[in-house]
């Protein structure tokens, strides 16, 4: 038999064919992998957009003048911030933000009115709780905007050449100032990890539970054909899902698509394969679908916490950073953010992509090795 013939008669094909038919008929899974991530992304976006309205703001007014009260009013009038009381020291600001009583603080220095009257530039400061980076970005620009409109009002009243008011914004708890734009690509990665792992982990276990695995393994199908046949259709699912989430991120959350989208799709294959490999490995360990589900969820937590999706990896203790190094998402986040936000190319990302490719290969081959054509 020639190579070509062998390939054509490989038992991988019937397996692939069967999986595709089953996938097409499994509406629930199709909905799970497309609609659910879309809804999650929308919910997240909705949360971003509501959070930036009515942020409770305390005021440290050391000027206590007509001008300083006018600035406070101008800022609360925008609706981004709500007046949440007066404080009398920086310590009190810290306390208010830490306890969640306030998410922002306006600091007006003693010489505020005096400087404006003298025609010089007065400086006010807005402190924004940036622990939730998704909302802080909008809050910070909201503060800038309110200050700018107040400055215009002052110019209109007094007619002057110099800028009367400068607002400095200080984000607290998140000095890097990570924005929603930074977070959304992360969600794309997290959602892919979650669904890819969960649906693949159930794949072999489901056949075991339904009794079809027993029938399948008395046939001469090879382990590799069996597992690859199961895996490949999910790659398409991964791409479908990625497309849905990316389109939403771009259309609704203004995530820029700076770099090459074809490159992103090409490189994503390594991440999708690695995630599927994790799911496949789980499915060789779990005895039933419930166990597979639990294991997949267990895998989720380190992904969310240690991959750099939520917290910057640079600030993590060594052990946490090392654990992060074995998670496919850690590398894919760099690829996603690199391509989407910075327009990076293969020259900057080849390390991440190689790591993902190695992981995918190792995970799939370990799974195939672990899988035995017996039912014990």
């Amino acid at each position: 038999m020639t190579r070509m013939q062998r390939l054509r008669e490989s038992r991988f094909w019937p397996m692939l064919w069967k999986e595709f038919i089953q996938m097409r008929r499994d509406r629930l899974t199709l909905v799970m992998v497309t609609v659910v991530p879309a809804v999650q992304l929308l919910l997240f976006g909705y949360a971003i957009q509501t959070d930036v309205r009515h942020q409770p703001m305390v005021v440290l007014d050391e000027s206590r003048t007509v001008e300083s009260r006018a600035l406070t009013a101008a800022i609360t009038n925008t609706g981004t911030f709500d007046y949440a009381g007066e404080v009398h020291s920086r310590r009190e600001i810290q306390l208010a933000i830490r306890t969640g009583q306030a998410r922002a603080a306006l600091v007006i220095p003693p010489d505020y009115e005096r400087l404006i009257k003298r025609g010089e530039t007065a400086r006010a400061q807005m402190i924004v709780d940036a622990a939730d980076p998704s909302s802080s970005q909008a809050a910070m620009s909201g503060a800038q905007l309110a200050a700018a409109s107040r400055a215009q009002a002052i110019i209109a009243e007094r007619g002057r050449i110099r800028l009367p008011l400068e607002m400095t914004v200080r984000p607290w708890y998140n000095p890097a100032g990570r924005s929603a734009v930074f977070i959304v690509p992360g969600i794309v990665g997290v959602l892919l990890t979650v669904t890819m792992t969960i649906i693949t982990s159930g794949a072999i276990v489901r056949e075991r539970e339904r009794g079809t695995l027993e029938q399948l393994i008395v046939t001469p199908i090879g382990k590799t054909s069996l597992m690859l046949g199961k895996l490949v259709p999910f790659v398409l699912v991964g791409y479908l899902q990625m497309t849905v989430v990316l389109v939403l991120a771009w259309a609704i959350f203004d995530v820029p698509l700076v770099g090459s989208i074809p490159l992103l799709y090409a490189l994503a294959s390594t991440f999708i394969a690695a995630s599927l490999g994790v799911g496949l490995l789980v499915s060789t360990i779990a005895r039933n679908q419930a166990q597979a589900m639990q294991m997949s969820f267990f895998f989720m937590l380190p992904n969310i916490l240690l991959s750099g999706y939520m917290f910057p990896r640079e600030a993590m203790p060594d052990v946490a950073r090392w654990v992060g190094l074995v998670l496919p998402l850690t590398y894919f986040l760099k690829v996603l953010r690199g391509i989407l936000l910075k327009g990076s190319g293969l020259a900057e990302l080849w390390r991440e992509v190689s790591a993902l490719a190695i992981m995918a290969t190792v995970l799939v081959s370990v799974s195939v090795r672990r899988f035995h054509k017996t039912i014990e």
Partner: protein
Amino acid sequence: MTGPSPAPQAAVETVGLRKTFGSLVAVDRLDLSIPRGQVFGLLGPNGSGKTTTIRMLCGLMQPTDGTARVVGLDVHTDAELIRTRIGYMSQRYGLYDDLTVGENLRFYATVYGLHGAERTQRLTEHLEELGFTERMGQMAGTLSGGWKQRLALACATAHRPEMLFLDEPTAGVDPAARRTFWQIIYRLAERGTTILVTTHYMDEAERCQRLAFLSRGHLIALGTPTEVTQQFGQANIEDVFIELQRRDEGVRA
């Protein structure tokens, strides 16, 4: 058959076959020889080790001890080769409920290595013979018990195996469907297929050419239906079975 070498025509030959699950002995030192072309019945109460025996012969489970040869090949070393030459119908049928009749059959036929025109011809024949032509597009999950059973048999025999293992193929199937099923079995046997079938139904046991009775993993009787009834001094197989079950429970109590 006293020679040291197994008879060349034996389809199944086991020597001291044993399977334990922890401290439970599911199959204990089973010596069995089934000549080619025979319809052989494996009988015994629930939990007596029938399924475990079949699973070891099909290479689904590793024997704890002993040897087994199926179609002349060692189950331990030639499992993959054996798989191309046997058919197996499990207790749970192993059909994909979300595939149609035609798709199930096509899938198994292709996995068994049938391709192109040969596959098409074989499937058409097969579907016709089993009366499935009109149900090609029906989802397997919506078939009644009798049709499911027949489809499972069709899938297990699409590649014309020399040896067929049927594990309680007629459990929960109505009498009419059971009769049709046995007609198919006999047709296969006439073509030279060796058939090992486990069953609970005593009328089916009487249809086998030879029987083996298992009790708690032990082979306790072997022979033609008539020989076995005589051996136990009973009127028919059903009485033998009831007697065995009584003994079995006696040991357990």
